[in-house]
């Protein structure tokens, strides 16, 4: 079983200095095994100004087994899959230690955003671009941040409107958009596939 007492304490601890770190963790539902984390894009990177949502699932063995984390906000980064949001980070795999917490893991992910490791890529296309044409990489990453990591906050009503006009119920549209991180096309795909 997940050690919920510890998770509870972690959440309290994390929310205490949210102003300082900018890292938020909140339960997705009333079940503490499924959480949503949010990290601000680090300053001085193409991710600056964006807020990136991360889906967190705690395995039964938590904290003795690493939490499962993936981006739900689309992000253009060599160590994060542009398709699935999967993260290539050692502390989420064999280098996990029970002494780490959700907050420290999210901080590590934030650090990964500032210092990509293109030699150990999760997304080969992005890594190739990063190495061969850094300027284009920065452009794409910034564009993705503008479109997905900010638009979800700004243009969300517009998208909801558009999808509702297509005939989907509003509540479903909102929850689906949230799941896919505000990507209109992915939301539509998901809604259509039922």
């Amino acid at each position, binding site marked *: 079983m997940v*050690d919920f*007492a*510890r998770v509870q*304490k*972690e959440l309290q601890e994390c929310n205490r200095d949210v102003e300082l770190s900018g890292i938020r963790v909140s339960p997705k539902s009333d079940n503490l095994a499924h959480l949503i984390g949010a990290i601000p894009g680090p300053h001085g990177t193409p991710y600056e100004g964006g807020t990136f949502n991360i889906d967190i699932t705690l395995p039964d*063995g938590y*904290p*003795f*087994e690493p939490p499962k984390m993936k981006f739900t906000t689309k992000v253009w980064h060599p160590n994060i899959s542009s398709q699935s949001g999967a993260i290539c980070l050692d*502390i989420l795999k064999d280098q996990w*230690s*029970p*002494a*780490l917490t959700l907050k*420290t893991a999210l901080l590590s992910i934030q650090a990964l955003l500032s210092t990509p490791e293109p030699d150990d890529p999760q997304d080969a296309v992005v890594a190739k671009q990063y190495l061969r044409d850094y300027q284009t990489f920065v452009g794409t990453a910034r564009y993705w941040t503008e479109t997905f990591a900010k638009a979800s906050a700004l243009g969300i009503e517009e998208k909801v409107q558009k999808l509702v006009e297509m005939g989907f119920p509003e509540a479903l549209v909102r929850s689906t958009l949230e799941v896919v991180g505000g990507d209109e096309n992915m939301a539509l795909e998901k809604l259509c596939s039922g």
Partner: protein
Amino acid sequence: MEDWVSSEEDYGSSDRESLDGLDNEEPDSPWVPPKVSNTKVITKESLLAAQRDDLGRVTDLLSLREHHARSLLIHYRWDVEKLLAVLVEKGKPYLFTEAGVPVAEHQDLDLSVSASTLMCYICIDDVPSSEVTRMDCGHCFCNNCWTEHFIVKINEGQSKRIRCMAHKCFAICDEAVVRNLVSRRHPDLAEKFDRFLLESYIEDNKMVKWCPSIPHCGNAIRVEDDEVIEVECSCGLQFCFSCLSETHSPCSCLMWELWTKKCRDESETVNWITVHTKPCPKCHKPVEKNGGCNLVSCICGQAFCWLCGGATGRDHTWSSISGHSCGRYEEDGEKKAERAKRDLYRYMHYHNRYKAHIDSFKQESRLRETVREKVSNLEEKELQFRDFSWVTNGLYRLFRSRRALSYSYPFAYYMFGEDLFKDEMTEVERSIKQHLFEDQQQQLESNVEKLSKFLEEPFDQYAEEKVMGIRMQVINLSVIIDKLCKKMYECIENDLLGSLQYGTHNIAPYQSKGIEKATELSVCWSAKACTTDKRHKLNKQTKGSTTQSDQPSGSGSSDDIGCPLPKRARTGGFGAGLFDLNLPAEVSDRN
């Protein structure tokens, strides 16, 4: 081709049977190596004793506790020499840090003076200080969290490298603490942990391997110095230590792997069929063109164009089929066919000879019975010479050389073929080497056949004088054949492979006395260690404390280290609660 495969399988067992039989008959016969074999059988009883030697060297040299020595050895794959080389080159701190052994042990200073409760940074709870454990690296967490951590790691199969829970601490946890804490909640898991630790000596050690017998005999074999060797386990199985397949010298492991694969998948036959035949467009049977023009007719009556394989009508001239035309690729096709045919004939040449010797070997294995009869017949006669060891010696020499001869054909197939050494020899070099080798091989072959002929003669019916004549022949031939075998191996090593990439083709050396039999590991000297083990075990049980226990590792089997070791008995239960080493850990876990 099916029978090629099965015959090879039979061959292994019949060979073993025949040699075993001879050994039982005459235990003092000269081919049983009189020297103490360096190859050892490690049984479940001697597994702990087998590693004590290495553990002892490391504990003494670095004045370490045993579990730290074990961590070091596991990290350096039980290669004491390598470990010492790292120590000399890079120093103790490097050696220890790499293997996760704390350089300086932290004392429990603050623990003894601290308050009655401590904060555990894993569960973020205050726990009584009696319920926490400090590891050698100095990190301190509550016993519940440690136990959870150990259980997760053991189940992940990481028993041999359970690291401290603190982030970026690479220290390996004290095995006594792990054993103690885990056994409180899951005694069976603690046993599994013990077994993984003990079996590391086999799993992570390039000088020790499980015997590949099926069903598994429970033994492992340890060799000294040289991994390229053929050995015989005490269960009777003979195998090549480096690739664990049946013995195959003078073939290298790579050659043998390629050869068995080739024999198995009948690749040459398939090759021939694809090149020489085309499927009939109607009945799809392979059709061979045996002459004439390109209009071919199948036995089903369908006519088709040989060039494109398409169905046609029957009207044709020599140069064309009426109403049909297709591109011509004739020249290319012919070259391919020629090549495939040449390759096939070459393979057939070597395989036939290989097979012939294997067959002879099987036939001659039966000679054992008749020879025994002949000897007893002779013994009944009042002869002047009453020593008949020359018969069994000759028979043994025959078996020994037959093997070498059989495997010399697949060797030659690859040595002079294009698969492995195409770019390493010029045509001329290859042909010189081939002649050299074939001369050796032929000489050996003709003498082996002669020996075989003499041993098959009904010499028990002969007059004494004639028996003496055969005796001289057999003795002479035995000596000659032994020399020729040696020469053939020398030729392979020096003249054939010596100038090439020898590193990748290691060949188990020729052993005149036969395949090395692994001997039981003597465990007598460890009796003292065994008693201390027991004492510590008692201490541990009464104390029930987890901090800084000196209990030596592997207590799980220490009860079985007796002196002297009883004659092997592989079946039946040993000490109660002892895990079953008859199976490798993974196998028994699955059960």
